[in-house]
């Protein structure tokens, strides 16, 4: 019953199938197949794919609030970055005395700034479990407080979008400051290991990739559980006719806050998986541009479908990787053109294009 509800969506089944294959095949192709074979997947590619998977999870999170609840958040990158910083802080503490300055406790940038001791908010980040809780707790708390203020005052539409944009911009400026204690514009980097495993080794990289794939699959299942529950139907009702939903007795703002917070937590997890794979987190991740690009991924993939958002994130980032390598100056124009094209010609994204060629799905209970 529950399983059939979650797996009912054909596109989603494909996504889960591809992820399962990737979890098995990529480690084999990287670790067991000889590097001169055609089937070998180099570690660089493994990390690149892992990065795409993190972006896909982030896109999934945005699709949950935008596609299903109609909240166009232009600052979702902030939650991603906060999750990333929580992971980064753990990785910094793991360096221990192996930093350039060899201080047993303080990260290099603090020694450089002549700080005497660790700021209080760095406490606890030497413990993995604590850092993992913070990965979801910090973005979740920010989303909850922000949502509580915004949705209770019935801020919606373009005003909310602008406020979320301002939120991520303000965080970017704050994190750029050295006094904040997050490494200023250099951010956190030079990571050595994660729970004792060397971050440069192939095995760790492959494991991180597999965890990303599994988390994306789990994230999809959680989102799918939410949107196919009665709560999901309430949330789409809020999107389509907010005041009507209020009149039949639902506290609309509670639903909005809830879905916004859950989505921010997912974004935090995506950020935490991203940081060890790229090896750095800096305030650039808070850039408003990142959050806008994220919206473009979801729009291109097809919003309100979940798997479409993941697909969009993968395709656009693949295009970005190849194009920025070949013609770096053209990429932003291409992205802009793609967005305009999709908005005009494919309002339901790539997924909508695909659905147009097959008969309309039958309705269900």
């Amino acid at each position, binding site marked *: 019953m529950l399983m059939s509800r979650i797996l009912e969506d054909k596109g989603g089944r494909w996504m889960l199938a591809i992820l399962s294959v990737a979890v098995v095949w990529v480690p084999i192709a990287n670790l067991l197949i000889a590097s001169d074979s055609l089937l070998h997947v180099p570690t660089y590619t493994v990390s690149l794919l892992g990065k795409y998977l993190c972006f896909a999870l982030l896109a999934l999170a945005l699709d949950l609030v935008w596609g299903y609840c109609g909240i166009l958040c232009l600052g979702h990158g902030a939650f991603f970055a906060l999750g990333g910083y929580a992971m980064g802080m753990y990785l910094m503490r793991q360096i221990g005395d192996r930093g350039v300055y060899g201080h047993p406790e303080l990260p290099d940038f603090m020694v450089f700034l002549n700080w005497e001791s660790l700021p209080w908010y760095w406490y606890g980040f030497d413990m993995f479990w604590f850092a993992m809780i913070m990965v979801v707790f910090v973005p979740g708390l920010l989303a909850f407080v922000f949502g509580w203020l915004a949705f209770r005052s019935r801020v919606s539409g373009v005003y909310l979008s602008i406020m979320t944009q301002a939120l991520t911009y303000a965080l970017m400026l704050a994190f750029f400051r050295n006094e904040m204690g997050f490494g200023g514009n250099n951010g956190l980097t030079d990571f050595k290991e994660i729970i004792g495993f060397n971050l440069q080794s192939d095995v760790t990289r492959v494991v991180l990739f597999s965890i990303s794939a599994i988390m994306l699959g789990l994230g999809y299942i959680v989102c799918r559980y939410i949107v196919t*529950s009665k709560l999901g*139907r309430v949330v789409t009702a809020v999107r*389509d006719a907010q005041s*009507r*939903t*209020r009149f039949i007795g639902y*506290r609309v703002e509670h639903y909005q806050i809830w879905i916004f917070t859950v989505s921010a937590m997912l974004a935090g997890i995506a950020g935490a998986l991203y940081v060890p794979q790229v090896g750095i987190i800096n305030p650039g991740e808070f850039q408003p541009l990142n959050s806008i690009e994220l919206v473009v991924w979801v729009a291109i993939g097809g919003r309100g479908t979940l798997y479409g958002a993941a697909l969009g994130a993968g395709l656009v980032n693949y295009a970005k990787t190849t194009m920025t390598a070949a013609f770096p100056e053209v990429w932003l124009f291409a992205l802009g053109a793609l967005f305009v094209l999709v908005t005009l010609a494919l309002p339901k994204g790539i997924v909508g294009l695909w659905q147009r060629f097959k008969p309309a799905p039958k*309705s269900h*209970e």
Partner: protein
Amino acid sequence: MERDRVFEFLIEKPTRDSLVDISHGNILYLEDITVSFDGFKALNALTLYVEVGELRCIIGPNGAGKTTMMDVITGKTRPDYGTAFYGQRIDLLRLSEPEIASLGIGRKFQKPTVFNNHTVFENLELAMAADKRVRATLTSKMSGEQRDTLDETLEMIGLVDKVHSLAGTLSHGQKQWLEIGMLIMQNPLVLLVDEPVAGMTKQEMDTTAELLTSLAGERSVIVVEHDMEFVRSIARRVTVLHEGSVLAEGTMDAVQNDPKVIEVYLGS
């Protein structure tokens, strides 16, 4: 803490029906309600009582305050003066919109607003009286009893064969019925229905009249309508509003022969 509330946790949570005290035969008491928008009095010392189980029609020219009156009852607009009680004890002016809805006052808007991207079934399911808090809806499953209520309602509004169609694909009349169905699913004690037959064909009007009459009795139904013929076909008691207060009240015949009413409708 009040002395008589010390053991409150031992007392069963009051149900809706025990909260709404209708021992005096009336379910709504509006007294001296005045609402003004920028100096214009949309309601002017309006006093209106509605009996339990009554089907009441409210007519009046444009701007008479019919919609504002509904806004006051459902908590959308707060009056400047006056009192509004639901049963003997519940002060409507102190409750929020969702609280009023959950206590059993349902409203149908002038323009049919159903959830177009949900099926007829889902529309009724969403409206159904149930725990409407976030955590409860995440794991909620429909009980057999609820399913029966839903089927009965479908039958009543005549949309059995449309149960799995998207509400957006329904005709105008069918949307109106679906909306009335959604009201019924909330199991209300009072139904406020704003212009239910606007834009309906003669045949659809007859079906609607039948539907509304069958709803009264168990519930109180208040219908605001412009179409006189329709009002005549369902009304037992009619209230005429004019410039924010009650001009006349009585049977349709009595009201239509009232010289004040004739003046307002024909004289101006």
